[in-house]
C-alpha cells in the first residue's frame, strides 16, 4: 500500500494555499516536506490526515492508515505518562506501551503527571504516541520542536525502525533529521491568486 497524492489543492480558512501537489510515499520510505513558514505545510498535512477537505485532487491510501501528530500533543496534564499513552493505545486497539516508552526513554518518567514534564519531555511523549497507534503512515508536523539533540536522535531512530518495518512517514520539518529521505519543497506549488474560493459552506449545505 502506497500513499498517493495527486493534483491536490488545499485551502486554509477558505483561501487556497497550495495547488497541484502530487507525490508518492511507498512503504519503507519517508518524505520530508520543506517550505517557509506559512507556505501551507500544516494545511497540506491536515488535509492528508483527513481533518479538512481538499479543494480538489485525490489522496489514495489514507483511510484509517494515518497517525497524525500536530503542534499539540493531546496530553492531559492530570494523567501520568503511562496513563496518557495507555489511553491512546486503547483508542487504537492496542495495549503494549513498553516499546514506545523505551524508544523515547520515558521509563523513568512513567508515573509522573504529564503536566509536570518539560516541553521536550512532553514532545517525546507525544511522539511515543505514534508508536502505540499501530498505523502504517506517520504524518508529522514539525515533530522536533523543543527536542534536544539526543531526543532528535531518538526520534530519527524511531522513524528508521518504523520504516524498516514497512511503515511510511511524511514529515514537515526545518532541520536535518539525518534520515535517508526524499525532500519535497512546497514553495513552487503556492497559490498565486488570493481569490476566495471554497469559503462558503457548500459542503455543509
Amino acid at each position, binding site marked *: 500500500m502506497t500513499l498517493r497524492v495527486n493534483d491536490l489543492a488545499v485551502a486554509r480558512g477558505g483561501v487556497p494555499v497550495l495547488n497541484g501537489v502530487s507525490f508518492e510515499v511507498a512503504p519503507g520510505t519517508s518524505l520530508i516536506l520543506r517550505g517557509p513558514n506559512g507556505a501551507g505545510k500544516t494545511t497540506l498535512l491536515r488535509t492528508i490526515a483527513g481533518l479538512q477537505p481538499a479543494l480538489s485532487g485525490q489522496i489514495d491510501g489514507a483511510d484509517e492508515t*494515518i497517525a497524525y501528530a*500536530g503542534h499539540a500533543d*493531546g496530553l492531559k496534564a492530570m494523567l501520568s505518562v503511562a496513563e496518557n499513552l495507555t489511553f491512546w493505545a486503547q483508542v487504537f486497539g492496542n495495549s503494549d506501551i513498553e516499546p514506545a516508552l523505551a524508544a523515547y526513554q520515558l521509563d523513568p518518567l512513567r508515573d509522573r503527571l504529564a503536566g509536570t514534564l518539560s516541553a521536550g519531555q512532553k514532545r517525546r511523549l507525544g511522539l511515543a*504516541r505514534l508508536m502505540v497507534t499501530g498505523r502504517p503512515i506517520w504524518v508529522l508536523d514539525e515533530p522536533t520542536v523543543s527536542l534536544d539533540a539526543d531526543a532528535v536522535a531518538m526520534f530519527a531512530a524511531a522513524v528508521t525502525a518504523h520504516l524498516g518495518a514497512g511503515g511510511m512517514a511524511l514529515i514537515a520539518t526545518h532541520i536535518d533529521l539525518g534520515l535517508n529521505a526524499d525532500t519535497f519543497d512546497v514553495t513552487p506549488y503556492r497559490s498565486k491568486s488570493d481569490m476566495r474560493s471554497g469559503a462558503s459552506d457548500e459542503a455543509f449545505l
Partner: protein
Amino acid sequence: MIALLHRDLMLAFRAGGGFGLGLAFFLIVTVLVPFSVGPQSELLSTIAPGVLWLGALLACLLSLDRLLALDYEDGTLDLLATAPLPLEAALSIKALSHWLTTGLPLVLAAPILGLMLNLEPDGYIWLIASLAFGTPALSVIGTFGAALTVGIKRGGLLMSLLVLPLYVPTLIFGAEAARQGAMGLDGTTPLILLAGITLGTIALMPFASAAVLRMTLR
C-alpha cells in the same frame, strides 16, 4: 470507547477536573432560594419543583464550557478525529461522562435539597424520576452546543444562547412532571414526553454534534 469514558471520568475526579462544579452551583442556588423568597413554607413548596429543575438545568449549563474546550486546546480532538473511533461515538461517550459527573450527582442530590424547599412528600419520587429521565437530554444537547462553539475563545456566552432554547422543552416537561407529582396528581404524561425527548436527542444529537465538530476542526 471504554478507554475514553475511563479517561474522562478519571480526569473529572482528579484535582481541577471540574467534578462537583455543577453540584456546588445547584446546592448554592437551592439553598439561597428560601432566603430570597422568605420563610413562607407554602410558597416554597409550590415553587420547589420549578426551582429544583431550573437549578439543575443551570448547573448543567455551567459545566458545558469545559466539555470539549479542554480537549480542543490540547489537540486531543484533532487526534480523536483521526482515530478509528467514529466521532459520533466519541461525542456520545463525552456526553455520557458529562452526565455521570454532572447529571447523576444532581439527581442524587435533588431529594436532599427538596427537603430544604419543603417539597411535598408525594413529589420526591416524581422529582427524582423526572430529573433522571431529563438530565441525559441536557448533557446530549449540551454536547452539541459545545461542539458548535469549541473553536471560539470565550464561547461560553454564545453557547448559552444557543443551548438554552433547546433546553426549554426538557425544562417544561421535566418541571411539569415534578409539579404534578408534588400536587398529588399523576405526572405520567409529561414524564413520558420527557423520556421521548431524551431518547430522541440521544439517538439523533450525536450525529449533529459530530457534523458541526468536523466543521469547527477544519
